[in-house]
């Protein structure tokens, strides 16, 4: 319990803005986890497919970028919703 005492003391100075900042940070960070895993899967699968069928490389390339951009956007949705929560 002694370890938690400084934390509790620090918590007495908590402001609304501080809590909102923490919420924004946690929200955007958690959102990035999913997008990160998704992007990893997309590129991994693409490498796998090209290794199996190298003649499809050009066709897969445009699909890969489409998937990458769609997945990457998910991280930004959480970021935008975090910003909305922060400023409202």
């Amino acid at each position, binding site marked *: 319990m002694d370890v938690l005492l400084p934390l509790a003391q620090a918590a007495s100075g908590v402001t609304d803005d501080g809590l909102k900042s923490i919420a924004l940070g946690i929200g955007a960070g958690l959102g990035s986890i999913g997008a990160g895993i998704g992007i990893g899967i997309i590129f991994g699968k693409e490498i796998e497919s090209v290794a199996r069928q190298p003649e499809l490389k050009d066709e897969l390339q*445009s699909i890969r970028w489409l998937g990458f951009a769609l997945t990457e956007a998910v991280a930004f949705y959480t970021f935008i919703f975090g910003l909305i929560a922060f400023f409202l």
Partner: protein
Amino acid sequence: MSTKRKVLIGLLLYFAITAILILVVGNEGKNDEFQPQNEFLLTPWIAINIAGIDFSITKAVLYLGLASAATIASMTFIASRMQREPNKVQMAVELAYDLTRDNITRGNIPDQKLARRWFPYLAGLFFFIWFSNMLGYLPLPTNTEHKVDIFGLAVPTLAIYAATANISIPLALALVSTAIYHIEGIREKGFFKYFASWLPGGLEDMNVFGKAAIFSIEAISHLVRPISLSVRLFANILAGHLLILFMAGGLAVLLGFAALGALTFPMAFAFFVFEIGLVATLQAFIFSTLTAIYIGGATAESH
């Protein structure tokens, strides 16, 4: 010297500079005077107010005009002096033209007549968003909040901003795209048949309630399309600008912690290269590709 040692020495130098700066400068405490986030503030330069609606000329309007002018001027200039043996610029533009025609339009709209009809819009969308994104990474003297004195002339300080970093422009483009694919679908199939075609195939045996449930899910997905289309572009460009701004010194200034600047400044370069090399082009490509996919999907024979 081996590569491993060179990398190690580089990294050590990188952290040593930061450590020395921490020792020399230290922490000056939180700074409340200068607010880097004002970079995104839109101060009206020429206030215009018609019937209670704000039509003021702001930074965003300037960037919008610049992007439109750059798109029209560069495309007409290149088209008017086409040569049989193209130079490098013409080659690059022809490559982009081929990408918009073959890959984006014809690859996603199977009907050739429809593809020819909507190719100008899709290509225009691609080039306009591309120019708008790229102009966003060019520092222009648009920050009227702070002036810098150059030979007795008060010039606004350099700032980066993009028309697409403002939600209203991507939203307008997305709404136009949404309206187009709905209208095109209704024209192709007829009003009720188009909405009936939202239901995926293979549901003939389902009862009415199941069909209604699936139809409402499809309706939600159609409603969300303009939002996701606009927020994707807007958030990508805004986040890129925020990252460059904070890494290039905004974070150090905001926290009054100069040593942090040495640590984050190289990252600003990395993000800048990433944004210019990948995100600017990719987002333009995605926006027009998705519009083409929506048009192709709305007019396809079977869902």
